[in-house]
């Protein structure tokens, strides 16, 4: 069975998308699956930090690949072989988790913004990553909104997870994304609500949104100060597996593993 592309998307920034992607990918890797994570948020990359990767450790990047200066094999960074020293990160030692980072060099970013992305090449790169690293799942951390590179990742994905906060603006934007995903025949569409204030009725939020979009809400994750304080480095759900945020996040894993 070919590896699946899992796109994580949100209409606006600040939904906790990169954090969710990194934690979700790691949780899937912990089940023994071979997992890749691509940072296609080329304008404002960030997911590498959560995997303990800094500018010095970062080798070849997705930018190098898109400019024909590196192969996908060279871009893939094995987190399992270099798990970093975070309490959560060390749990990934020996696991098959590969990160395909975007460059954080100012020059690289402005170049790609100027020249644009060669979509065929990016698409080729994703497929190559799946084949060469024998991935079961390739997670794509997209740029918020519905620009062309995001539309591409939605179009190529087998599983699309839209992250939203329970507010009107996110809901309005999500409605368009849901329609687009359906128009592009994405086989598996899930919604995940993040940063819900504890005073809200979580079950009510879930059923309201499911009714609104006729789509599955995998779980409603609470807004958590613990999370906000500890999430900038390391993988929160691995470090604090029993925290309510982590428990709610882990509920998404079976949806991914069982998706056809």
């Amino acid at each position: 069975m070919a590896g699946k592309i899992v796109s994580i998307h949100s209409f606006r920034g600040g939904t906790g998308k990169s954090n969710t992607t990194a934690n979700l990918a790691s949780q899937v890797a912990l089940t023994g699956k071979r997992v890749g994570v691509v940072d296609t948020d080329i304008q404002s990359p960030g997911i590498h930090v959560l995997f303990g990767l800094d500018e010095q450790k970062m080798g070849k990047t997705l930018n190098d690949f898109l400019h024909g200066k590196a192969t996908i094999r060279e871009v893939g960074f094995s987190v399992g072989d270099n798990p970093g020293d975070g309490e959560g990160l060390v749990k990934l030692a020996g696991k098959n988790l590969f990160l395909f980072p975007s460059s954080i060099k100012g020059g690289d970013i402005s170049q790609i913004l100027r020249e644009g992305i060669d979509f065929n090449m990016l698409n080729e790169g994703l497929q190559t990553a799946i084949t060469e690293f024998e991935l079961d799942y390739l997670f794509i951390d997209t740029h918020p909104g519905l620009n062309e590179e995001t539309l591409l990742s939605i179009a190529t994905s087998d599983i699309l997870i839209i992250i939203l906060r329970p507010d009107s603006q996110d809901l309005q934007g999500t409605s368009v994304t849901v329609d687009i995903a359906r128009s592009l025949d994405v086989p598996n569409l899930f919604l995940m609500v993040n940063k819900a204030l504890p005073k809200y009725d979580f079950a009510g939020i879930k059923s309201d949104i499911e009714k609104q979009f006729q789509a599955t809400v995998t779980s409603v994750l609470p807004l958590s100060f613990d999370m906000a304080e500890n999430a900038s480095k390391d993988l929160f759900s691995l470090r604090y597996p029993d925290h309510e945020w982590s428990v709610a996040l882990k509920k998404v894993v079976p949806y991914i593993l069982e998706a056809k």
Partner: protein
Amino acid sequence: MSDAILQKIRKTEFFKELSDAATSAVAENASVRHYVPNETVMRKGDPADSFFVILDGHLKIVTTDAKGDEIIINKVGPGEAIGELALVDDRPRSAGVIALDEVEVLELTKEAFFKLLEQRLDVSLGILRGFSNRLRFSTTYIEKVIDWSQKTAAGDYSFLEQTQPITNPAGSDDAKAAQLLSTFYSMVRKVKEREDDLKHELERLTFEIDQERRKREFDEITSTEFYANLKEQAKALRQKRNSK
């Protein structure tokens, strides 16, 4: 000793299981003492060679904190015993006792008490019966508290409805266990009330989606040539991958 005193002795927790004859035997070996308000009955550290059963009035059991200030540990009244632990261990008084009002107590020295136990089997049996009753009551109450704790932990509050509200039985010594039960009962009641309030407070969010805007934005994106190509490519891609 007067009949009035004998009546009072019979009402105490310690001697309530005693027969009339046994009660008289106790009274003969004990002495009645009176204290005025604020009078010290015993000091912390005094040798413990007797115990008291309160017939009338109230006393406070006190100790001192690090600064030397008085801390009241407990208040005791008619029917309760003080210093009965002295009967079984040889340690000095663990706390001081001061009269709060006019107090009448029955003092029984350790020596007299043991002599009584030796000579009168009925006194010994009566006291043992009293102890075992206290223990049985306590065990029943503790079992109840365990049961309720487990139910509360599981979120099952049905026992609140099935149980008569328990009020604090004041005074007597073996009522301490009952008091625990009653405190526990009212604690769970309050926890449940707070939980109910919280559930009520949970805000139900209402979401309004502007359907016109949704359609307009969807059309803007999907009407481009880029999108048309993408849709074709995505279709081809899926077919290719499905055939693998």
